[in-house]
Structures are given as structure tokens and as C-alpha cells.
């Protein structure tokens, strides 16, 4: 009965230890996965500017290009976001204003820094959504997906313009092309200039596919925004250097810009998981120490109860090592029995315990701030790189963390017990059992047999 009790207590301690070990491994793996998926880019935008919305003063291209002189910065991609109202272009927006457009009064924007967008005018029945233009020297998937919060756009026809192009050319989204019956070689007017369509892209999003990409200098010239940029993506040579580069950029640009890095945002969002990792580590240590103390006290109790047996064994000529070995064998047997039960229970409870720890640490609530940074200063809505600051608007479910463009949910943690974890845990338990029983047996083998046998 006593043996069953000792094994049961050990099983509980081992179950707790193994569940914490599994939880810790799962959280660590998640953290590592998230960190590995974090880009080494930093997004720079005018203070208060967000996508095509907000205020602020455009940044100067020369200043942004100067960021290349900051250590570890390998590339800077600038863009200028503009809106073409119906008076400035022959293009017809493919997006109907609808209730939301009418409510927000889109349509009176006249360019970066001077938008009177949200709530700037009363609702109008003649209102129409403007066509959005991105001036960039890096047309293609990287620019659209990276700097502007888009998804994985692909050219479906034609070709991209040269990065050094200053021509009046554009690649247009497939939805916009369809609405305006544009093909490669077609032309449209923007700011009174004749623009030739070089290519058509598709991103799988109506919002993104309603946009126009043009050479940066062309947009600057036509929009009368010479030298202006509204967004820049700074690439750093290594994830390890993102923090220092971020700091240097903030110092360089001061209060003129919002500087956001995916890494900083990721670390902030990983804080709950780090808390879980810390909790599980301390609980693991505590349960291991607890198991060791239980084992030591149990073995002390057992060897004290068997003093007479030890005395008899010594009288029969048993060497001390033989007596200690016997007690080690017994405690290792207890531990293995406890481990078998504890492993099964621990594996079964590890998943709910991990979920409970993550929930308790606040991992499912505070997503504010993270999303904006991860998505970058992009289009402002709809692209796959954007999730609204509050979970209620997310089209990928509420109450969970999302990584813009990474398709990664922080709280979706998969727990699994690998053989290496179980073998490590079993070996650790056996070593602790052996040490505990050695200490306990060593206290008893020093007795002189005559003392024990005399007092019987």
C-alpha cells in the first residue's frame, strides 16, 4: 500500500513535470517559428500617415535614401501613394462607394499629406471611390506585397517597368483593368497625362487589384509632389541587426516619421508566450525539485523502517555498496512505475495546460499595435497584410494574434512529446531517484549492526 502511495505521488509529480516540459518545448518552438518567420524589414512612413489615409507631411526622398548610410541597412524601397479622383483620370474605379464609402466620404483626397479623407465631407449621393496609385521603383511582387501591405501579387500579362523608368507607364490591377477594359498597350489619362499599360497583375484581392503601379518619379512629377515619398521599406542585413537599425532610423528621422519594424512588433506580441515559457520553466523546476524531495523523504522513511534488515544484511557480510544498490534499485523501480503513469497523464494534460497558460497570460487579447506594425503602412484595408487593430474586424477570426503576410497565429500552439523529450525526462527521473536513494541509504549503512540488533 505504501509502495502504491509513493508511486502515485511520484506519478503526479512526473505528470506535472512532463506536461510543463512539453508546454515549454511547444511554446519555445512557437517562439522560434514566429521569430524565424519575421522579416528583417523596417517600415518608415510620415508621422500620422497610414496607407492612403491620415495626415502628416510627406518624407523627402533624399532623406529616405540617406538611410542607406545607416549600418546594416542594405536596401531602401520608397513609394508615393496617391489617389486619382474622377476629375484627374479617365479610369473608373471598380469599387462602388456603398454604404461605408458614403459614410466616410471618400473622394475628396487630392494627394499625400493633403487628404481630407475620413469624415472630411458630408455624405454625397454622387460620391465615387478614387483610383489609388502607388509610385514605386520596384514594381512586382516584392513591392506590392512588402511595402504596401499587399499579398502575393503576380503579373498575369505584360511586363513590369524598369526600376529606373521615368516613362508614363503603369501596371494595373486585374479588377481595374477589367472594369476599364484595359489590356497591355492600352492607355488611360492621369493628371492629364497619357499613361500606357505595360502589365496587369492579380493579387486575389479586389482592393489591391483596383490599384495602379507607376514609376516613382513619374508619380512625383505628375502629382506635383517632387521628391516626396509616403512610405519606405528598409531592409536590414540580419534579424540580429534590426533593433539597432530601427533605433538609428528613429534617431535620424526624429518626429517626422513613424518607424515600425516587424521584429519589434513580433517581440511585443511574443511577450505572453515568453511569460508562459517562464511560468512553465519555473513550474518544471518546482515539480522536479518536488519530485526529488518526495523521493528522498520516501526513501528516508523506507530505509529507516528497514534498519533492522540493513543490520542483518551487514551481519551476513553484505558490503555497503550492495545495500545501497538494493535501495537504488527499489527507488528506480518506483520511479519507472511512476514515470509510466506520469508520462501518460502528463501527455494527456499537456495540451489543455498549455492552452490554459497561454489564455491566462493574456495571449488572446491585446493585439492592438502589433497588427499595424506587422502589416506595414500599406493600403489601409483589405490586403492580406492588414488586420484591424481590434479582433472584431478581422476576417481571419477574432481573439487571436495574426501575422500580416505570415499566416501565423500565435495562440495556435501544437503540443507534442518527442521521444527525445521523454527519454530525457526518464533519464532525469532515474538520476534523481538514484541520487535520492543513495543519500537515504548512505545515512543508514553507517550504522553498526550491533546497535540495530541489540535494540530489536
Amino acid at each position, binding site marked *: 500500500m505504501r509502495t502504491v502511495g509513493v508511486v502515485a505521488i511520484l506519478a503526479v509529480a512526473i505528470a506535472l513535470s512532463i506536461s510543463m516540459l512539453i508546454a515549454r518545448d511547444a511554446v519555445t518552438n512557437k517562439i522560434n517559428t514566429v521569430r524565424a518567420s519575421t522579416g528583417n524589414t523596417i517600415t518608415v512612413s510620415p508621422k500620422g500617415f497610414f496607407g492612403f489615409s491620415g495626415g502628416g507631411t510627406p518624407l523627402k526622398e533624399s532623406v529616405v535614401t540617406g538611410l542607406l548610410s545607416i549600418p546594416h541597412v542594405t536596401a531602401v524601397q520608397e513609394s508615393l501613394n496617391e489617389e486619382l479622383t474622377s476629375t484627374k483620370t479617365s479610369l473608373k474605379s471598380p469599387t462602388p462607394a456603398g454604404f461605408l464609402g458614403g459614410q466616410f466620404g471618400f473622394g475628396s483626397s487630392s494627394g499625400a499629406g493633403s487628404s481630407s479623407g475620413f469624415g472630411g465631407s458630408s455624405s454625397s449621393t454622387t460620391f465615387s471611390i478614387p483610383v489609388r496609385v502607388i509610385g514605386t521603383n520596384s514594381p512586382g511582387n516584392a513591392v506590392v506585397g512588402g511595402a504596401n501591405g499587399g499579398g502575393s501579387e503576380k503579373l498575369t500579362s505584360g511586363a513590369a517597368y524598369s526600376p529606373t523608368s521615368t516613362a508614363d507607364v503603369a501596371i494595373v490591377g486585374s479588377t481595374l483593368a477589367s472594369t476599364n477594359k484595359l489590356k497591355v498597350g492600352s492607355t488611360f489619362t492621369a493628371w492629364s497625362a497619357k499613361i500606357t499599360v505595360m502589365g496587369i497583375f492579380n493579387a486575389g484581392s479586389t482592393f489591391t487589384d483596383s490599384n495602379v503601379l507607376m514609376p516613382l518619379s513619374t508619380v512625383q512629377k505628375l502629382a506635383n509632389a517632387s521628391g516626396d515619398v509616403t512610405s519606405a521599406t528598409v531592409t536590414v542585413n540580419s534579424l540580429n541587426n534590426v533593433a539597432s537599425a530601427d533605433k538609428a532610423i528613429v534617431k535620424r528621422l526624429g518626429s517626422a516619421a513613424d518607424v515600425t519594424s516587424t521584429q519589434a512588433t513580433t517581440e511585443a506580441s511574443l511577450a505572453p508566450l515568453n511569460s508562459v515559457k517562464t511560468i512553465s520553466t519555473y513550474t518544471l523546476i518546482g515539480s522536479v525539485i518536488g519530485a526529488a524531495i518526495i523521493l528522498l523523504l520516501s526513501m528516508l522513511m523506507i530505509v529507516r523502517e528497514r534498519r*533492522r534488515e540493513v543490520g542483518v544484511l551487514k551481519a*551476513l557480510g553484505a558490503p555497503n555498496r550492495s545495500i545501497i544498490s538494493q535501495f537504488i534499485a527499489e527507488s528506480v523501480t518506483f520511479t519507472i512505475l511512476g514515470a509510466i503513469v506520469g508520462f501518460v497523464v502528463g501527455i494527456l494534460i499537456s495540451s489543455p495546460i498549455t492552452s490554459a497558460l497561454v489564455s491566462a497570460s493574456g495571449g488572446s487579447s491585446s493585439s492592438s499595435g502589433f497588427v499595424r506594425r506587422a502589416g506595414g503602412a500599406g493600403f489601409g484595408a483589405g490586403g492580406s497584410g492588414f488586420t484591424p487593430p481590434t479582433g472584431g474586424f478581422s476576417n481571419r477570426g477574432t481573439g487571436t494574434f495574426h501575422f500580416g503576410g505570415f499566416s501565423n497565429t500565435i495562440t495556435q500552439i501544437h503540443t507534442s512529446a518527442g521521444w527525445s523529450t521523454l527519454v530525457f525526462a526518464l533519464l532525469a527521473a532515474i538520476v534523481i531517484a538514484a541520487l535520492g536513494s543513495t543519500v537515504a541509504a548512505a545515512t543508514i549503512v553507517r550504522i553498526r549492526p550491533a546497535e540495530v540488533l541489540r535494540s*530489536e
Partner: protein
Amino acid sequence: MLKVENLDKTFHTGAGDVHAVQNVSFEAKGGELVAILGASGSGKSTLLSLLGLLDAPDRGSIDIDGTQLANLDSAGRTQYRSRQVGFVFQQFNLIPNLNARENIKLALEFAHWPKADRNRRANELLEIVGLDESKAERRPAKLSGGEQQRVAIARAFAAQPQLILADEPTGSLDKATGQKIVELLREVATTQKATVLVVTHDEKIAKKADRRFEIEDGVLKEIR
């Protein structure tokens, strides 16, 4: 041949010094059954502990077949207990989770007998002490007191020691069984050519011995 000279043992207690064994000297030959009579607290069990190296004397020497026990180190004392001396206790002191045969084999294991010979030797001893196969497989709790003491005697003789120390071997048995146990001790002492020292306070048991000693306040005297 056991030769004891000037053996002294004093216990220092809170109530003062207790001279448990005082200047004890005697000799005993192999195959001899020696009885030591004494009242409770007279020092007879202490004398056995000293002879079995379960305790260390303050003074004096013990010699078995030319080996001075005082010169033995820790490993030597352990080896002496496993090979040259056997104990029979009043409370039997068998290992409870081993059966009768395993208890005997345990003594052989400590004496480093070859593994292949242990079973044969254990069966031989079980036959000598009159326990059949069905009893050999039983744990101590399933044996009577007399049967347990027979197992204890078999265990004591297992490694063919020169000296058997029996401390009140009949103390927990009825008279008839006690008589049989003493006869068994005498028989085995003769066949195994071992010196058997039996500590008892029973005159009838003592009368079956070849020689008798009386111990009182630690002082040993032979009864002629």
C-alpha cells in the same frame, strides 16, 4: 580454532560506564558446541557481537584459525562476516521478501560463492535442516517459528564458516521445538566442523553443549 584473550567492552551511558565484557578469555575447537549462560544484561549478547565483529572491542584479541580479527580493515571485517562467521538470532531475522531458499542463497552471494553452486548448496542445507521443497519456496511469513529458525540455521552454515554465533536461538520457540533446534545445531556443528557458541539462559539447553560458560556482569567463567 577460536582463541579469545582479555576481551573488554565498556559502554559509556548517561548513567555511567557499563562494563559489558570484562577481561574475557577462552578457547573453543571446531565441531564444539559451547553454551554461554547468563541473565538478561549480563553481557552475553555483547560478547557475541564482539566475536562476530558486529561491534569493536576496547581491548583484547580474537583469533580464528590464526587470523587476528583486530588487524582487519573494513573490507576484511565484511569478508569475515560473510565467510567465517554465521549468525542465528532469537528473532530469526530472515529477509521477509525472499523465500527460504533465497535467504540461504543470499548468504552464499555475500560470501562470493559461484552462482552455479548456490542452488545446490541451498538445497543441501534445506535437506540437512529438514525442510522440504514446498517449504523452500515459502517466504518467512508463511513458515512457523521453528521452520524459520531452521532456515536461519541453514543460512548461518551456508558459507561453511568456522564459527556460528547463536543468540538465544530457542528464545522464540516452544520447548520441544527449541530442543530440536539445539540438537540440529549440534548435528550441523559436527558435520560442518564449525565451532558453535550458543547464548542462552535455559539450563536444559546448556546441558546439551560440550562445554558451558556462565557470564555475569561481563565476567566469563567456565562451568565444570
